[in-house]
């Protein structure tokens, strides 16, 4: 039951962020189904017992600020014990930093947090796999606000030029960024067309529909010789009514009362 797993990831994420008084709960909630599909929907070829397996698929959360739900996902998938989530997230000496650090905790491939870096590194993994004739795949989750960064489009051009069909981007298209609606800040529309124009095969899905997500992810590569873009329509803060679509939850941490209500809604 993937939906139960998704719910569990949200519960863990809520607890982590509330206890740590951390930010970015909205950004962590909008990618929960994407992570669930990748890690529990038989998409990523990974082995928690052997996280550095050279034959593994590569996953990069380029929007590093959403990492609370990634940490929860990795714990549930068996990369490290669940208690690490509470002991080490945003704590002195803890390995679960507010944006993923390099080689601190199993399952994290690269350090991200400064936006617009992850896709280029993903392109590097994908290109290396092509050079070495390896069958491994690379998946990169980008934020839609992150796509304001020029480096994303430099990487997109390169992937198209070099026919990296072993590379898949999933954009968390929640349409909210730092100071407001993406449409009002730097409008990325027409978005799917942009990816297509850069040489990618692009598809749109409901980013909270697990069936749709796993189905589309199983189909990559969509077209031989083309990198894959999945525009996942999501809701920032998905799962907790008072957080959904509210910019403030990019920053706020739930107080006691808000926490209780969120627990109720997520159980």
């Amino acid at each position, binding site marked *: 039951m993937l939906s139960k797993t998704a719910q569990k990831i949200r519960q863990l994420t809520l607890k982590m962020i509330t206890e740590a008084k951390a930010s970015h709960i909205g950004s962590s909630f909008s990618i929960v189904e994407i992570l669930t599909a990748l890690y529990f929907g038989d998409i990523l070829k990974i082995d928690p017992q052997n996280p550095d397996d050279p034959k593994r698929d590569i996953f990069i959360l380029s929007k590093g600020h959403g990492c609370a739900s990634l940490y929860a996902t990795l714990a549930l998938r068996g990369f490290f014990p669940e208690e690490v989530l509470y002991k080490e997230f945003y704590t002195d000496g803890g390995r679960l930093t507010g944006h993923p650090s*390099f*080689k601190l905790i199993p399952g994290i*491939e*690269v*350090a991200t*947090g*400064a936006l*617009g*870096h*992850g*896709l*280029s*590194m*993903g*392109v*590097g*993994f*994908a*290109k*290396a*796999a092509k*050079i*070495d004739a390896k069958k491994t795949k690379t998946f990169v989750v980008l934020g839609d606000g992150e796509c304001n960064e*020029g*480096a994303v489009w*430099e*990487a997109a*051009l*390169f992937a198209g*030029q070099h026919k990296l069909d072993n590379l898949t981007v999933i954009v968390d298209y929640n349409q909210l960024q730092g100071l407001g609606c993406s449409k009002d800040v730097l409008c990325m529309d027409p978005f799917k067309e942009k990816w297509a124009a850069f040489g990618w095969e692009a598809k749109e899905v409901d980013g909270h529909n697990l069936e749709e997500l796993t189905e589309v992810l199983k189909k990559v590569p969509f077209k031989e010789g083309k990198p894959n873009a999945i525009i996942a329509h999501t809701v920032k803060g998905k799962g907790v009514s008072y957080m959904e679509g509210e910019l403030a939850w990019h920053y706020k941490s739930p107080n006691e009362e808000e926490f209780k209500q969120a627990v109720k809604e997520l159980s």
Partner: protein
Amino acid sequence: MALQIAQRRRIQASRKRAVVRNTFINKLQELAEKDERIILLVGDLGFSVIEEFQTKFPERFINAGIAEANMVGLAAGLALSGKKVFLYSITPFVTMRCFEQVRNDICYQNLDVILVGVGPGYAYGPAGPTHHAIEDVAVMRALPNMKVLCPGDPVEAGLCAEFAAKEKGPLYIRMGKGKEPVLHKNIPRLKLGKGIYMSEGKDLGLIASGNILPRAAEAKELLEKEGMSVSLISMPFVKPLDEELVLKEARSAKAIFTLEEHSLIGGLGEAVSKVLAENKFSGTFKTFGIPDLFPKSFGSQDYLREQVGLSAADISQTILKLL
């Protein structure tokens, strides 16, 4: 083996001048024959320099296009997949244009990526200020894990490729662009964080790094004509700095001067001054380099050097006045 090395060291450099970047790339090509991990990544630059490598190793030559931020992230992904990546472009584009990628993706993750920046200081003189590189050493030197290597002549440039191929972790090589005089009569050793004595004198020490080395050698000759006994030290590594050598020179010389074609902020001069100040050097000390300014008038590398007092004559006269 030891005999071979000794023989090689005895080989006199055959050409009087050699194009620094070609010497480097030719050497890299030899190394790539033996080491399949080596990849040459360029930012759509290197016309008439990289073609042979490209033809010989089409799979291991990547032109990332005019997109340096992606080029550096791409290098990180390749390195994380086991490749040894040499990233080649004009100096400002491989250090400053993509600085955050160099910091986060390469240095923080401590990856086997070698940044080769061609055309240090005023090497692209008449091309104008966008192509000058006068702050690159300062910014690269500030990065944890990064090593900064500035070859002073074609011999050192060739050695840089060999050094880089063996060394682990991030490395920045500040590579000369054009024809430079061959200064080393014998092939020296290039060891991490070690300077090279070109000559040893008693009165004063000239410590030079990178493409200003020929001017330092000329200034030394001018000073010797005035009766001075001068040490000339080539300091290819600005980081890690050969502190031991600086202190050795400080014990014997009455005066020490650093020379670099780089801003006086954050380069060799400041690195050496820290060592001297912390060790109570009481002699005369001055740093020669580029003052904190953008030129107002442009021209050849030598023209620009003259504007900031970096000709051999200016250097030697300033030193004579100080002593």
